[in-house]
């Protein structure tokens, strides 16, 4: 009798863990695993840990925006191309000797326009975001290639590169500082404001949300703008980190961003999500990449390991719906 009680208690705890804390536990387990396995290969050195934070920053920031889109029941497939176009516009403006602030606003303006376009077509045209953003993505990739004719734009503005990715304040990378700022703003917006609650209501059940007077169209427009803006900002950080802008920026990031958001506990079906969870999801993916590389695994094995983690995350996400 006691055994049965114990077992149901453990089951309850496991369910609770899988629901709320799986990403945190997974992250801790991966860090412990690599700390033991790679103890003599520099995994736990300060510089390597800072590497992980720096390397995951742009994914984390895109994941914040994507969390909003997915919680609202949408998805934004155009973020990769938005990253490239924003970085290129910023790079071109800097090359034209525009003031840094203007170049930054230009880059972010690209995101704003793309988000507005995605939102308008989605809500006014009543087209699923997956289709709209797929189309937008193609247009943006073409634009990114055309405006510089596939040439990389060097960025020599020291203020820009320091602030947006290459600088350190003390020993802390500005990329990490930006991640913290964006994560805090995102978490507060999603969890502590009426707008955030409306996003969750829209993604949870849009009919009910409309019944309670929520303008779901405005909410969907809002999340798509947030998603594009976060991708634009990621583009600025790529440009600052690599002192250049290139049409290929962000092209390989979409799957990683979606994986980070889902691993972080955001339901693919919408209605529920966590910005902090997405950041931890991104860190988990980054730690995995870093550890697998340090362990000497070749790229195909790294891809297999990453794919397995994504599948596990999706299985857990779907299981949670049943629970």
């Amino acid at each position: 009798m006691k055994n049965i009680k114990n077992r149901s208690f453990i089951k309850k705890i496991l369910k609770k863990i899988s629901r709320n804390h799986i990403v945190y536990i997974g992250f801790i387990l991966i860090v412990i695993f690599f700390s033991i396995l790679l103890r003599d290969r520099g995994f736990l050195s300060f510089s390597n840990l800072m590497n992980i934070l720096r390397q995951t920053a742009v994914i984390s920031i895109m994941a914040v925006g994507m969390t909003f889109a997915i919680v609202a029941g949408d998805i934004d497939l155009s973020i990769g191309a938005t990253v490239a176009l924003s970085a290129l516009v910023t790079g071109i403006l800097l090359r034209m000797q525009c003031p840094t602030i203007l170049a930054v606003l230009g880059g972010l303006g690209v995101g704003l326009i793309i988000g507005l376009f995605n939102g308008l077509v989605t809500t006014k045209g009543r087209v699923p975001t997956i289709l709209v953003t797929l189309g937008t993505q193609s247009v943006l990739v073409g634009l990114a290639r055309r405006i510089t004719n596939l040439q990389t734009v060097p960025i020599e503005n020291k203020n820009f590169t320091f602030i947006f990715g290459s600088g350190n304040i003390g020993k802390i990378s500005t990329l990490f500082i930006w991640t913290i700022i964006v994560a805090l703003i995102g978490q507060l917006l999603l969890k502590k404001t009426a707008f955030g609650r409306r996003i969750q209501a829209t993604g949870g059940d849009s009919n009910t949300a409309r019944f309670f007077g929520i303008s779901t169209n405005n909410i969907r427009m809002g999340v798509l703008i947030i998603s594009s803006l976060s991708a634009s900002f990621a583009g600025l950080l790529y440009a600052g980190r690599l002192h250049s802008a290139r049409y290929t920026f962000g092209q390989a990031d979409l799957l990683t961003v979606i994986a980070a958001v889902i691993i972080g506990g955001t339901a693919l079906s919408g209605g529920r999500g966590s910005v902090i969870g997405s950041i931890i999801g991104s860190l988990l993916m980054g730690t995995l990449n870093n550890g697998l590389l340090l362990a000497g695994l070749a790229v195909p094995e790294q891809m297999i390991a990453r794919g397995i983690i994504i599948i596990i995350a999706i299985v857990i996400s779907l299981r949670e719906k049943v629970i």
Partner: protein
Amino acid sequence: MKKSLLWVVVVVLSLSMVAAFSFSGCKKEAAAVVKGITLADLGFDSSKYSAKYANDPDGNPAVSAYEITLTDEEIAKVKEGSYTAAILWAGAGECYEGLTNGIKSVFDELGIKIILESDSQYDVAKEATDVETTLALNPDIIIAMPVDPVSAAEAFKAVVDKGIVLVFEENIATGYHAGEQYVSMVSGDSFGIGRAAADIMNEALGGKGNVGFIYHDADFFVTNNRDRTFVLQIEQKYPDIKIVAASGFVEESKAGEVATVMLKQHPEINAFYVAWAIPAIGVLEALRSAERNDIKIVTIDLDPTTDLNMISGGSVYGKVTDLYYDTGIALANASAYALIGKEAPPFAVVDLMKVNKDNMIEAWDRSFGMEPPDQILEALKNNQ
């Protein structure tokens, strides 16, 4: 109803614009049929592509990579150091395997341990990430192929700052100078390969015919050199061969679509030059679909699919290959030079090899340091 009408108008306008652009493109290429497209037509100065070897992107002249050798005493000196190395490639495939095989053959002899191998999948951000992660292992040597010269300048800055021996393959980071930030750059003889491809094209066409030129439309030192010297050699050495259409590709998978369009616009094409073998697979498919088995393909580098086609007397007439294994040897030797304080040449090039089915096995051995796959060996037996 009004909305539907609006959508129809938008679609029709878009299609008209696309058609207008395509039509203007046709006119431009059709006009070139008369005299054949020249390097000047493509916007390049032929004097830059006339020398025996290309200079490196920093302007250093090339020497033969076979001059980079170590004496027995020097080998013993390197062995004493128990050095470690990391290899960071831009991509993956047989060529990279050939490079790695060449490097390993030297490092094994020198007692240098390879502690990390990675490829950035042509992603500049991943390249920067790989460099940062590699630094945690503190290697003595990094051999790398930068994806993009401009982005690489920042990505490899920490390597330079740490004083790690840095040797580049095929490309260098912008603003870097040999002997300062890096030791040497080693590459294939890009000018020679372009010219050799033109010579093979002449053989394929029997001295006369029309060529569709499918080039790599990206800013990449080696492929740009090969493509442009091919055009120049055709223009200067083979007056009866005309390049009647020229189009570029960025993704390898798009070359087939380029070939399809070219064939529609220029059915008079007798042969295609394709920048390298993987995109040529798409061109092969385009020829099959168009039922144009009469058209030849000349391309660069070995790969099983196009090699099999060539062996069986298909559309692939001939190839030129870079000797990647030799490049790997030169890269490893150049890094050893730096370890013992010996000055390495800033830029070195390896030989090339013209490939046909008779020297296929030797080509795989010299290019990749390996035997061809069983399928190729079997096809060679069956088509003797």
